[in-house]
Structure formats: C-alpha cells, structure tokens
C-alpha cells in the first residue's frame, strides 16, 4: 500500500522533530515532508500530493495562513491545520473563513489523531 503524505512546516527544528516522533510512533504508514518556512515548503512540495498539512503560524517570511492559501491554490481539497500556541482573534477568524483547522500547541498524539479523523 502506498504511504500517505503529510507536509510539516515549522521554523522550530525541535517542533518538527517532535511531530516526526509522533508519526513514527503512531502513524507508520505516513510519509512526512518537512520544511522550515513557507518558502522552503513551497519549493519542496512542488508537484507533490498531500493528504494533510500541519503548518506553524509564526514563521519568518510568509506566515502560516498565507502559506495555507498558496497550498490550497495548488491542491484545493487539502486538509490544512494551523499548529499554534496563541493567535490573534482576527487571524483565527481569517483562517476559519478559509476552512483551515487548528491544533493548539503543544502538539500530541491525540491531537494529531483527531485531525486525521476527518480525512478521507
């Protein structure tokens, strides 16, 4: 069976490492593509089909919401979650009106599992 693909974007290497461990523990049939910021993500994900994207909000350069918009333009049906500890209400409303989900930091196995439940 072909592996499912998730895009992980976070400027903190520790955060990426953590998510990688969770997937290694609980979701072995998933393949991850990691990026350290939006630019990096856009370059690496060109032409790749994802089942899920977990994107940090606060990053140098383009923020998570703007990256999410670009990703949706490439792949309209992509399930995107913003992973963030605190976010301005205005930004949260903006993300919600784009149909983006939220995962509150710190991320854990339970939160990733519930995000995956909505996936086809």
């Amino acid at each position, binding site marked *: 069976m072909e592996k499912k693909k998730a895009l992980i974007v976070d400027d*903190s290497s*520790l955060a990426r490492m953590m998510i990688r461990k969770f997937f290694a*523990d609980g979701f072995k049939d998933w393949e991850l593509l990691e990026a350290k910021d939006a630019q990096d993500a856009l370059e690496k994900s060109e032409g790749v089909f994802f089942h899920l994207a977990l994107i940090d909000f606060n990053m140098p350069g383009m923020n998570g919401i703007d990256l999410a918009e670009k990703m949706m333009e490439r792949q309209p049906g992509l399930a995107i979650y913003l992973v963030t*500890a605190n976010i301005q209400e205005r930004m949260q409303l903006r993300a919600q*009106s784009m149909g983006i989900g939220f995962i509150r930091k710190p991320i854990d196995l339970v939160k990733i599992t519930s995000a995956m439940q909505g996936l086809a």
Partner: protein
Amino acid sequence: MFDDETQKALMEEFFSENREALGRIEKGLLALESHPSDHECINAVFRDMHTVKGNCRMMGFPRMEALAHKAETILDRMREDNMVLTQEIGSSLLGVVDRARRTLDVIARSGSEGETDFSTILDTLERFANLPATCQSPVMARCSDDPLPVPVSSPQPKTKPAVSSTVPSGKGPYAPPATVESIRLSLSRLDTLMNQVGELGASFNQLKYVLAHHPHHVEQVIELHGKQIQWLQSEVIKYRLQPIGQIWDQYHRLVRDLSVEIGKKVILDLVGEETEIDRNVLAVINELLGHMIRNAMDHGIEFSEERTRHGKSPIGRITLSAEQKHGQIFLKISDDGRGIDPAMVLKKALTMQLVTLEQSSEMTDSEIVRLIMAPGFSTASHVSTISGRGTGMDVVKAALDKIGGTITIASTQGMGSVFQIVIPQTMAIVPSLLIQDGGETFALPQTHIVELVSFYGNDVTANVEGKMQAPMVRFREGLIPLVPLQRLVKRDGPKRSSRREIERMHQASALHIVVLQVQENLFGLEVDAILGHTSLLIKPISRIFSHISLLAGSAVMPDGSISFLLNVPALFQSHDNSEQSKF
C-alpha cells in the same frame, strides 16, 4: 513519553535551538535600543521568543515557559505599535534572556529547571505588559497631540456575537456602534480649546470696545473674530472623526461566521483602516457595508469546486478599502466572484416591471446592472438566508442618498464586482453653492457641482435646444439635459410642455445653469440666480419633512432665514423618472 534515546535527541535539539534563539533575541534587543521602531527586528525577536516558549512547553518546563510567555506578551504589544521599547523595558527583556540561559544550564546539569525564583522579573514584566497603550514614556509626547478621540463608553466590541445558525436579523450583532455617545479627549487638547475660547472672548470684548469708540475700524476686528470661529469649527469637527478600522474589525467575524454557515472559503482583506470618517457617517455606512459583504459572500463568491473548475483560486477574496481624497471618502468593496450577469438582472427587472422591454433596448449593460438598486430588487432565485433579509441594494442606496453619498458598480462576468461608494467625510459642515429660485434660497453641495454657466442674450438660443422633446444645453462639445429647478420642486405649479419650456428659455434674456454630476450622468439645473459659495452648518431636516427626499438638510442663513440643502442624486432621480414617464 518517548524512549531514552529519543528523549535525549529531543533534549539536544531543545538546548541548541533555544540557545541560538536566545542569542538572536539578545542581538535584536540591543539593535532595537537604537532603532526602536524597526518592525522587521521586533518581529524576529518576537518569533524567537515564541519559539523558546513553545519549546519549553513541549518539553515540560513551565517556569521558563511562563517567563518567555510574559516577554512575548510585551513584544507582541510592540509588534502592534501599542508600546515602544524604552531602555527600562529593554533591560528587563535582556534580563529574561540571561535568566533563560541560566535555566538552560540548570536543566542541562540536573534535568529539571530547579527552584529559581522568577517572581521579581515576572512582576516587572507584568507591570510593563499592563501599561496603558498611550502612556508609557516615549509615547507620552505623541499621545498628547494625538488627534484621535477615543471612544470611552463603548470600547472595541470585544464581546463575540453569538455564533448562531439562525440569520442575524435587523440590528444583529453587526449593528452600528450607535451607542458611542462619548469621546475621550487629551487634557492638552482641551487646554488648547480653552485657550482659543478665551481668545474668542477677548476679541469679542475688543469688538464691543471698537464698536463704541472707533466704529470705522470694526472690520479688522470682525475679520479676526471670524478666523477664530473658523479655527474652532474645524478643530471640533476633527474630534468627530474616527478611524474606519474601528467598525471594520467586526467584519472578520461576520465573514468567518458566514463562510462556516454556507460552506464557502473566503479571505477578507482590509485596506486603509486608518481613514477617518465622521462618527455619524460611520454609523450609517457600518450597516450598509455589512450588508454588501453579505451580498458578496452570498451572490458574488462561488463555492470552491466551482471556482476551481473555472481556473480560479479555491478561496474567494473580498477586499474592503477606504481612502480620503479632497474631503470625501472613497470606499471600495470588491470581490473576485462570478460578477453580475446583466441578462439575469434584466430578466428579473422585466418580470418585476421595473423597466419595459422598449426602455431596456436603449440601456447599456452598466445601466442594467444598476437596476439591482431599484426598490425590492433581488436576483437570488430563492430567498437566501444570508442576504435575503427583506432588504436589498435599494436600502443601501437609500441610506447613501441620506448622507449625500453615491455608489457605482463595475462588474465583469466571471471575474467579480467592484462597488465604489463616495461619501462626504463629515456631514456637519458642507461646502455649498447658494442659488435662488422662485424667490427662495437653496444650497447645492459642492461635491456634485461641475461648472457654473450663465448665458446672456443671443447666447441663450445658441446653446439651448430641444432634443427628443426635452430641453438640452450645450456643454463641453456635447448636449446634456437641462432641467428647471422649478419643475422639480414645485410639483403643483403650472406644468408647461417641453416645447413651451424651451420657448420660455429662448425668450429669457439670461439663463443661469449649474452643471451637476450624479454618477456618470451630467445635467444642467436652471436656476433664477447664482448667489455664491459658502460653508453651511447643516442640520438634519425635521421629521415632518423627512419624507421629502429632495431635501438633504437645512441651514440657518446670516439673516436668520432657513434654507434647504438640496439632495442632488434625488433631484436627478426625480428628473429621470419624469422623463421616463413621458414614454
């Protein structure tokens, strides 16, 4: 949670990433001391502090997390321009960096963050975090001459309107902040006002003295007196202005709730939030902007699937922009949705008998699109729960007419629509032209006036002619309709036929015409005499006259009489209707 080896790897990453971040924070803070408004730098420092906080939370070090969190709060306020980095604040933030580094050392040695007491620095940070936005040291100077009065009785509506699945009806959670009945004024501004009023009193005394002793020098004193009053007037008007961003904030919520409700993906962009508008105007436009955003969400923006099918981004975009130009406010509501289909509009207008087939044959697409503002018009084939609230674009237009605003629509099928609204920045003082007609004095708002033309003797016949049985006047190498004001205001007066009207004009020894513009339409208004320009303090007209849409307000003239400000779009409408009824 993880096996030893994983835990060790995570901790190594924890140390190295945090140390790097702290190093950058320290450098950034030092740079900010000499350039406190460097936004790039503030953002970078904020992000690094945010990373440190997140890392501590992930690895379970709550004390250091709390420390980073407090620092982040202060940095966030700087990011939002709510606070400026003073040396004192800078030192405290650097103190956070030192303590965080020491704590990392402790963790590295013992595996736990220990019992280090952060309470002193946390208290200091807390104090900074709670400073009122306008009153820390460097901002103090700025806040005293800050021209913005801040509403005090109704702070930003932080209360979230309930996310109800039912339709917000009438004055729902997005109703105008009509309750803003008081403003906050800085003491220094009040003092300036006091001074000016004092000087006004002094020059009044001077006036009395000069009148009694040197009556032929009175003009000079009156001139000074007039200047002082003018200054006071413009100063007080400034207090009435408020940034439009204050009412815009709630639209994020509106768009979010609607997009969840109808399942469309939308981004709302706001441009020009700092644009200042009279608070009265603000209350009026708040409701109509909310309505237009609803319309754009409901009729304009397509569902993601449809958008993708047409090669558009799956996410729709609605942009709201405001700009101040020459005492007027330009508002634009644009969406990249499906646009308005003239054929659909026309079909509906014909069924509703808003126009006849014959009339429509001479209408341009943009004229047809404007029919959506006819009373009761709604193109939604079903009564939608979003914008179908028994109100349509006709309500928007009526509200705009009331405040002397205009609206234009530009729509391209498949590409989207742009609604442009032009409104006066303030309604209190209106630069006007005084004219006389039928023995009465009227005022016309300058904003609609294109030119003043007077013809004498033979020039009258040379420039006025009949076309399609209606009087027309030559203007800039073209012909525009010429309407006697009498005909519009004196409904019960003698009705001349158009031919007789032209004859009358041709026999006149002089003809005075005010060329007016409503949207893209020019027309000439014939009046008995043009008196001159003035600025009028306009009062809303009393309730008994409020049904007369031709009148926009009233003003007391120097001799104590009352004059009416004419509503130019309504004048044009009235002329247009009487023209159409000829057919």
